[in-house]
């Protein structure tokens, strides 16, 4: 992958206390509501992360919502219920999570598009078995400041008691994140192959008006 370009800082592990969000089916409209998608930039979405849960009608922070609890500031791991990130394809969802400071989300499953979008930005979607997820929520409830380590290199979660839980991750995406490279560089390196394919497969349609 000689033509792969450096896209971001290489990343191999993160150690942090966790932000618990014990809800299933958290959709991307909750992660970042659509009215904030009128931006033409990637930056600055951290303030709107979970906007409608995070702020009351008068715009003040909702003290009940987890992100507004003082110890949560600076935490980099989100622990969430099943099927996290369902709904729209907006990449603003991982952008907003990362802008707030989240580097890894742990759940028992992720929606496909969210998972893809997260991996392309170096945000780790870590899938654990449902019983493991329950155990992690229980652990965090008992010890709210307990730190977990998400180790991408070793593909394991490390718990405060020293025990470890392995996780699967797409091998290609893992390599990209560990190296800090991105997929576009890889695709561009295949220029000859793409050109050969195109020579054999003429366009099926032209969008240019006749």
């Amino acid at each position, binding site marked *: 992958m000689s033509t792969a370009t450096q896209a971001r800082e290489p990343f191999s592990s993160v150690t942090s206390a966790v932000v618990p969000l014990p809800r299933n089916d958290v959709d991307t409209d909750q992660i970042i509501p659509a009215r904030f998608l009128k931006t033409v930039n990637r930056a600055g979405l951290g303030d709107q992360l979970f906007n409608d849960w995070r702020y009351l009608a008068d715009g003040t922070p909702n003290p009940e919502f987890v992100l507004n609890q003082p110890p949560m500031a600076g935490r980099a791991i989100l622990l969430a219920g099943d099927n996290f990130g*369902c709904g729209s*394809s907006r990449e603003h969802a991982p952008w907003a999570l990362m802008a707030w400071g989240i580097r890894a989300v742990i759940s028992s499953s992720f929606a496909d598009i969210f998972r893809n*979008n997260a991996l392309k930005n170096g945000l780790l979607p870590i899938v654990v078995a449902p019983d493991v997820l329950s155990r992690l929520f229980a652990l965090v409830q008992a010890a709210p400041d307990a730190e977990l380590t998400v180790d991408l290199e070793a593909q394991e979660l490390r718990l405060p008691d020293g025990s470890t839980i392995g996780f699967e991750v797409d091998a290609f995406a893992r390599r990209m994140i560990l190296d800090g490279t991105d997929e576009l560089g890889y695709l561009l390196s295949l220029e000859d192959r793409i050109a050969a394919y195109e020579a054999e497969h003429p366009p099926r349609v032209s969008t240019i008006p006749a």
Partner: protein
Amino acid sequence: MSAPDPNSARPRPRTIVEKIWDEHVVVPGTDGAPDVLGIDLHLVHEVTSPQAFDGLRERGLRVRRPGQTVATVDHSIPTTDRSLPIVDEIAARQVSRLEENCREFGIPLHGIGSPHQGIVHVIGPELGLTQPGMTIVCGDSHTATHGAFGALAFGIGTTEVEHVLATQTLLQRPPKTFEVRVDGTLHPGVTAKDIILSLLSRIGVGGGTGHVFEYRGSAIRSLGMEGRMTICNMSIEGGARAGLIAPDDTTFEYVAGRPHAPQGAAWDAAVEGWRRLPTDEDATFDRSISFDAGDLTPMVTWGTNPGMGFPITSRVPDPSSVADASQRDSLRAALEYMALNPGEPILGRPIDVVFVGSCTNSRISDLREAARMLRGRRVADGVRMMVVPGSSEVKRQAEAEGLAEAFRAAGAEWREAGCSMCIAMNGDQLEPGQYSVSTSNRNFEGRQGKGGRTFLASPLTAVASAVTGRLADPRALL
């Protein structure tokens, strides 16, 4: 490789998904890398593309295939008078950014004022750009709509939009396949929308994750293209990035003669190829579900995701009857948001707004059905009904057929084409606490405006509710 044995020359039976996939592998995945998949058609809109174009500029890249790329504006544009400037400065900047990007990179744009402007998933089929056997992508999760034509069509994020712009390919791993078989005949007043809402209520909002749905069976075959699009459109609401229906004569009739469809000898050759797409008889799916269309009644959602739906004659579910703790919590949170009580009937629930529109149900046949039920009736006092055609073409046709006049005469608003209150980015939105009956695809919290509450339903159920002022069963008004 040993020499092929002539007696075992019969190829492996494949699903339509596998056939399309195999046709489009540019570079097979090796060393842990995914397949590189060629993309036939890339649809672009204003919301998920600006950062992708910036990425191209940063690297000094061009758009590789402008002639396989097409753009329109739909999400953030107003659906009011198009001769006026966009009041929302941020939305206006997003729209002008798309115009600049299309100009700079040579991409055809159906912008504001164009006769072909419309929701991206409405104009693709309308223009004949959407064709069987294609790979189609867009930075929008409802791209599966195009699967109605037997295309493999799926939503992508902005980074992938940049990949497609730059290389006309994507890195992808083959999906699993999920057969959705619907046989039988729909009763009057029950529609394609009710089929998909019923599926979602059976499998849940994450039930199809990692899979592509193939909708099959006699009930699917007997639907027109627009009903098929309604069903494929909501595949993502079951977690499936794509959903498709094998092409048949209904498909070919719809595509024939459209502006970008093949013509003459090229048409004949294309149809011959398309006839080979349907899933082989002995092919197997990773998962299957089947149900009978004759058992369905009009559906409505009661909760805060599209899987939380039931027949409109049902009573609101009771969280205390759910064994699983996390599901019980989800149900409780949904009922709290919707301000519904366990055990109460959903029929007769007062409503504030009716929205007929979105890439799910804004095509001419949807509007015809809605107008037919509305004729001779009036939108109930205190109810706001908005009808938003899916495209400028649909709008013209509806006006020519007298549908627009029927909507206006009944007291509904007849608006310009766009996504409108489906996503509530453009000022068309619910007030906090309001209830809508919406023909769109998502009832997530705040989806139609912060604090707004959405009941998803078919156009017929929407109209029946509009004239009644309450959630109503359309079968009573047929």
